[in-house]
């Protein structure tokens, strides 16, 4: 299968199609953006190029990153299973690293399925300038690599303040260096473990054993708010996505329907033809939660839930250094019908959504996930590094 939407020459960093590279068609996996060539590169790409890195190409993503792994843009393996394009490129060693936008957990799932690492950094640490934005309040550019050291290398280059992004934090740089893990405490969330299959549980216990061997305390706890966080994030994410992609209306660029008699038909026909079923479901859901009658009960409530969960997670992290969870409910995904996508993605996001909702860093590694407090990327990478080395 072809991993690239557009292959470029001689680079070793892949960039997903949601991230702009100057003059290279960028569609975020959507027919709606056909032919859109950006006039500028995303800040993360500019930073990498300034340090001498070269882009290997634009990898396929699912439309606006809304699907499970980015599989809708990529296709199904010969054995009927699904993979993410960028994750697979890193797994096969074709590129050293890849950049992707984590908006609803897709890159973390793809990394877990392909057996590579992906870090979704703390919200505000990496510039979102030049990202085809959907869920502005929780999306971040993250890094795929074979191991923690590979992520460390790229994060050091792309993180830091960007005045072109109003949500970018003021820090000029962040510390991602490895630190001692002995004596650290990691919590395994019981409620999430119960949602995973045997194979996934086995991976998690191998990872936990690896940590224990390095002097890390790993204990099971109860923390039910991952499910609440998922509901709240689906509401915020669909609402923000519905709003942010409303600009793709057939007027300015991208796909425009051939047939229309007036401006309303131009909008309706172009968008009907341009978006896939999952995107349409997200638009419907997002419009609904923002409507006058539902706003208070859905959107506004989710903002309050976000604040409460943020506080509760902080309380939990007063006693633990990180949370260890599955990243997916199983170790392989089979191909499925797009009409089931909305529900499938929602179910799988129970593991990933909390980090998007409250902006904490989350690292997929060894087929599982570590979630930490804000700015604890260095520790998460250290834990992953320690667990893996022991496992070998």
């Amino acid at each position, binding site marked *: 299968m072809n991993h690239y939407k557009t292959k470029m020459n001689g680079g070793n960093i892949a960039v997903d199609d949601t991230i702009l590279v100057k003059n290279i068609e960028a569609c975020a996996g959507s027919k709606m953006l056909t032919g859109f060539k950006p006039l500028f590169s995303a800040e993360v790409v500019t930073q990498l190029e300034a340090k001498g890195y070269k882009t290997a190409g634009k990898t396929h993503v699912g439309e606006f990153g809304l699907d499970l792994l980015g599989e809708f843009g990529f296709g199904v393996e010969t054995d009927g299973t699904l993979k993410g394009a960028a994750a697979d490129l890193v797994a096969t060693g074709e590129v050293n690293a890849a950049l992707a936008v984590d908006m609803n957990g897709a890159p973390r799932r793809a990394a877990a399925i392909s057996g590579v690492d992906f870090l979704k950094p703390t919200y505000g640490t990496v510039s979102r300038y030049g990202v*085809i934005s959907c869920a502005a309040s929780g999306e971040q550019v993250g890094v795929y690599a074979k191991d923690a050291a590979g992520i460390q290398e790229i994060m050091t280059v792309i993180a830091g303040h960007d005045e072109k992004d109003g949500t970018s934090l003021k820090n000029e740089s962040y510390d991602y260096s490895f630190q001692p893990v002995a004596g650290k405490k990691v919590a395994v969330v019981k409620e999430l473990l119960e949602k995973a299959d045997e194979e996934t549980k086995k991976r998690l216990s191998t990872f936990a054993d690896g940590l224990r061997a390095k002097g890390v305390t790993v204990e099971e706890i109860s923390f039910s708010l991952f499910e609440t966080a998922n509901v709240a994030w689906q509401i915020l994410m669909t609402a923000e996505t519905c709003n942010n992609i409303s*600009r793709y209306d057939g007027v300015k660029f991208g796909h425009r329907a051939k047939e229309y008699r007036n401006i309303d038909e131009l*909008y309706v026909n172009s968008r009907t033809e341009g978006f896939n079923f999952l995107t349409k479901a997200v638009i419907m859901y997002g419009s609904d939660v923002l409507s006058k009658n539902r706003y208070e009960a859905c959107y506004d409530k989710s903002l309050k839930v976000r604040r409460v969960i943020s506080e509760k997670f902080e309380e939990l992290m007063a006693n633990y250094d990180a949370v260890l969870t599955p990243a997916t409910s199983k170790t392989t995904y089979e191909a499925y019908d797009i009409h089931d996508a909305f529900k499938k993605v929602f179910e799988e996001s129970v593991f990933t959504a909390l980090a998007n909702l409250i902006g904490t860093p989350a690292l997929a590694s060894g087929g599982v996930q570590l979630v930490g407090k804000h700015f604890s990327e260095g520790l998460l990478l250290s834990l992953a590094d320690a667990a893996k080395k022991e496992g070998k």
Partner: protein
Amino acid sequence: MNYELVIGLETHVELSTESKIFCSCGGHSAAKEPNDCVCPACSGMPGMLPVMNKHVVELAVTAGLMLNCDINRYTTFDKKNYYYPDLPCAYQITQLNHPICTNGCVNLKTSAGARDIRIKQIHMEEDAGKLVHGGKYSYVDFNRTSVPLIEIVTQPDFRSAEEVVTYLNKLKSMFRSGGISECEEGAMRCDVNISVRPEGSEEFGVRTEIKNMSSFEAIEKAIRYEAQRHMDALEFDTEELVQETRRFDDASGKTFAMRNKETEADYRYFPDANLMPIIIDDEWLEKIKANKPAAVDEKAEDYRLAGISDKEIDMLISNNKISKLLDDIVAMGANAKDGAAWILTDCAGILRKDGKTLNDLVITAEKLYAVIKMVDNGDISRNAGKKILIAVVEQGVDPVTYCKEQGLDKKFDVSAIEAVVDKAIAENPQSVEDFKNGKVKALQALFGACMKELKGAGDPAVIKTLLEAKLK
């Protein structure tokens, strides 16, 4: 029956900032071609993020201070969703939940006496672009997209069209003088909410809204028409009034209901996650206050008390730069009325010779005051002062140095004048003889010789006294 009009206004004012509200595009009003003043951000291209223009916040706060509002230290932006081709993102960034200013008040002086109009809120938002229709196609021009606006929303406190126009003129004059907006044609647009009730009634009548009018004349006409329509409906049952949005047609002078579709939209407002809440701390607020010009009404009153004519007050109030210059020289010690004459008569006259206006005036308060002070102290004559002023305005010279160089400060230097008088007497024996023989006119010739020698800087009274004394 007698009826009472109840009117509330929403006024959109385009702010005089160098660049747009969320990007660095500037100079849209000078743009010659459609889409000359457009970048990826204000045309809604994917990947671009809005970045707040701080100057917009400062101007909105200044407007709030002028209208006696509470300044909200925590202010946020919301998105308003609707599809229209002139709105590139299909949403407008505006303020719903935490507007920047609330609870203000404006005092109006009308034929009905002084009235207070309460301001409900002022919020910041971006403007939309515009559509140009031609032939088979419609064209989109994004030059105006994301130009900063403030919307000033009043309580339903107006009772006549006259009050509305007085209020709008006052806003215009204040905003011009405060450097908030040029308020040029189209840069001030109004939505008028209007209802009518029997005089003495506390209940409000059915309210209609007339959208998007920019000329004060049209606003006045629209209010008069709409008020009459409401009163006819109440008095004669001509029609049933419904709450609706209407537009004013200038040609016919009538208002018409807009399609329901345009009035019942659910805009699905929600907070804009791309723009962090703005915190206005004490330090920032004090800085904005310090830069704020004195409230226009107070200022006009101060000028009036200083004896400045109404015509001159109008000139001063409408030009922030000039009134600031006057305020500055008055602060240094100049007399306000005299200072106004120096600026509005003398400086304006110098500029007019070259076909310029006061807008082109380049002079520091320090230099202007130095000239005035020399005249006031009697160091130089007013004529000499004018000469110096010409050199200051045209060449930017230092007035005191220039005065010395040109020998203009000798007016009262009696010994210097005496020497000149002696010289004139010595060089004009015939005139001296004539004078002594009773020809009074001969004195004029001697006086003229002295003035010539002194290059006009000598005080005429001093010269005359000395001449007469010497010739006796």
